């Protein structure tokens, strides 16, 4: 070590924790600014936007997207991708509906079945891509198709009306906020802690950065990869439950195209598709940005073309703002 390095290192040793916190907060600032800007804009455009009701509505709309995005964050960090989440969500909803309606299962049993379905699908995606060392893109694309087909089979290609058996999950519960929302928030917090504070989380980051180095350090990446996909499947299963609680129906077409929305939320949150970098809390901001944008545009009654054009711009602009802020902070 030379002298200057010594002093720098010494100087930064103690304030490390504080500065870590500051820098952590810093990483949220860009996205927070985008979010605040959007809320301000919509509030000025629509008289009812700035209201508890709007925010409660948004809060109750996002859980399904949010929990899938939590799983997807881990998938992207290991440099994978899971295109099947939308289909898995539909299948999970469909199996629970079939369990309740056709096989007369109790609601908890049916809910467990939905979760198990998601877990199984995710495990399959992970196991196939690990076993044959295939890109998860293609495996999950195959799953997207196969699982969607299964959802058609299970629902008999008809929307299954479930009724309010499981609607408590999405029913207003505390100041209008649903249980599903609280669950989603809890999952975001837990997942962030798992990512940054557990051995598993550190292995996930390491595998995404340099799988070979991790392997040489004695960490077998295969089970970890499978677990990440399995958990994402589980999250999609949970999302399916949340969705069918909200719709009181299992729609075989539910969540089609949703994979891109989920990935967009994660990427807006700054997680890299190349792996090794990501944050669940930032993903949550990405989810909020997408949800606020959608709600705001619907409320101001934007025409369909302008909606799409604005959405496109906002997605890119959000990432630009965030990127520039991160770079400025790094410099």
């Amino acid at each position, binding site marked *: *070590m*030379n*002298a200057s*390095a010594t*002093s720098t*290192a010494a100087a930064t040793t103690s304030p490390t924790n504080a500065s870590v916190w500051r820098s952590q907060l810093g990483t949220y600032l860009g996205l927070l600014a985008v979010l605040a800007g959007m809320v301000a804009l919509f509030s000025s455009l629509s008289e009812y936007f700035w209201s508890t009701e709007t925010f409660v509505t948004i809060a109750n709309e996002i859980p399904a997207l949010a929990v899938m995005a939590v799983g997807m964050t881990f998938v992207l960090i290991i440099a994978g991708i899971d295109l099947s989440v939308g289909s898995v969500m539909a299948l999970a909803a469909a199996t629970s509906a079939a369990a309740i309606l056709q096989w007369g299962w109790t609601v908890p049993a049916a809910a467990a079945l939905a979760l198990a379905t998601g877990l199984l699908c995710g495990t399959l995606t992970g196991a196939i891509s690990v076993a044959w060392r295939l890109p998860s893109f293609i495996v999950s694309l195959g799953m997207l198709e196969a699982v969607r087909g299964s959802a058609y089979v299970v629902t008999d290609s008809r929307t299954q009306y479930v009724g309010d058996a499981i609607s408590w999950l999405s029913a207003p519960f505390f100041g209008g906020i649903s249980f599903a929302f609280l669950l989603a928030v809890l999952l975001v917090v837990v997942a962030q802690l798992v990512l940054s504070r*557990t*051995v598993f989380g550190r292995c996930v980051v390491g595998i995404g950065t340099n799988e070979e180095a991790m392997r040489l*350090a004695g960490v077998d990446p295969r089970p970890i990869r499978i677990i990440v996909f399995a958990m994402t499947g589980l999250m999609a299963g949970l999302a399916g439950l949340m969705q069918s609680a909200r719709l009181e129906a299992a729609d075989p077409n539910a969540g089609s195209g949703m994979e891109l929305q989920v990935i967009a939320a994660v990427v807006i949150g700054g997680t890299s598709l190349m792996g090794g970098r990501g944050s669940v809390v930032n993903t949550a901001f990405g989810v909020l940005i997408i949800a606020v944008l959608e709600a705001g545009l619907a409320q101001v009654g934007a025409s369909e073309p302008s909606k799409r054009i604005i959405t496109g711009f906002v997605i890119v602009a959000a990432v630009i703002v965030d990127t520039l802020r991160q770079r400025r902070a790094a410099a």
Partner: protein
Amino acid sequence: MPPTSPTNPTTPLLAIHDVGKDYTATVLDGVNLALFAGEVLALTGENGAGKSTLSKILCGLEQPTRGGMVLDGQTYTPGSRRDAERHGVRMVMQELGLVPTLTVAENLLMGRLPHRLGWLQRDALHAAARAQLAKIGLDTIDPATPVAQLGIGQQQMVEIARNLQDDTRILVLDEPTAMLTPRETNYLFEQIAHLTARGVAIVYVSHRLEELRRIADRVAVLRDGRLVDVRPMAGMSEDDLVQRMVGRVVSDLEHRPRRAAGPVVMSAEGLGRGTAVQDVSLALRAGEIFGIAGLVGSGRTELVRLLFGADRADRGSVTLYPEPANTERQASPAMGCTIPRGFASPLQAIAAGVGLVTEDRKSQGLLLSQPIRINATLSDLSAVSRGGWLQRGLENRLVQGFVRKLGIRCRSAEQPVGQLSGGNQQKVVFARWLHREGRVLLLDEPTRGVDVGARAELYGELDRMASEGRALLMVSSDLHELMAMADRIGVMSAGSLVAVFERGEWSEQSLLAAAFSEPGGRAADPTSSLPSSSSATA
């Protein structure tokens, strides 16, 4: 120094019987070797001789095609690195294997992170990491620093620290000092002494012969995958060793005269970037080699990158001087002018006739998955194409020439560079600039991991370039190499160029003293005239 004789000369700690390894070709064959507790066995040989392969077999990273091993009287067939480590056999790999997004501490303890029910125990983690780092003199690095922020030399030290563990019985070090300067090397040798005193056996792979003399008890020489010689180090001269390795005598260059320097070709004035490089001024002359010495992290790589436009300086300038004879080059817009903040991009530098052999070949030099052919011609595709279409015949001929000239050991020019041995990879990077010879060539640790024979070959090329009037700048952590090759040696410390010596003025001591010196006027805040309160002594 370690004991000069094995603690128990009769029963080896590890015995290797008839080990062989085939990839598409045979790279190791019939290797019989015994390793004794408490000894340092040097493993040496040319690039591609099979040293890394043999090391990897010892550590479970590769499985031998033939033969077997006996550890402490028991059959030893490690199936993985993990498995080898359970037997106390550890290895510092030739290529860095750290995860840049994780912290130093996490890298050090990866695979055995302290936890309670899966949750990291940060305090325990950092304490363990600090202890580990202290062993090798890195106690000033904050274990919470992401590895991405360390220089490559520091990374090498972290890699070494990771393997200094109490349960180690055999430690294999594959060119651990290729990136290190004397200070770090000394720390490492101290550790080796501690380990051997405890009865640990060391396998030490290096191309630096003077190092082998310092620490090795015995030396084993591999040639073309076969063990050609194993004998005590004592009483063996460097020349003997070289001859055993390459089968011929390599000339000593240390006492050559200074080359005649021509006009200044390129100069830097007050070039700086952040705190990594602090206002460096230097002039490169035609026909001479300017060496740069300095400790790990002193900013040498950063300086070279600024000169090449790989990073943009934030102050100072670079000046290129016109070439009197060559009118064609004169036409280049960058000629004969001062460029504020240096070249804007490598493209501009190359257009102006400046080349760079990068230090970190893996991440900045090579396309590992691509064949030698593609890698070797990368910096001058116009020479192997016509109207944008590649001329395969031309390219093949050119590349065959390099392969022969530099003795790149490969199956064919179509072999992916990633499959070559480390030293051979380095030769491919070098070949690229043989292919496109400009006026200035910047070399950052050009002989890293290159064997003595090939090294002589590279030196020959450098000599030729210098005699043809090119200006060369060579960064090296190997002082002997610098003293042999350079006409002038600049020494960097903490981002500043603290001294420049002419050939004949320097000695190992004076160079080292400069490298350890506190750069004049340098303080935490460069504008402040007060000496920094934090300036510690090394």
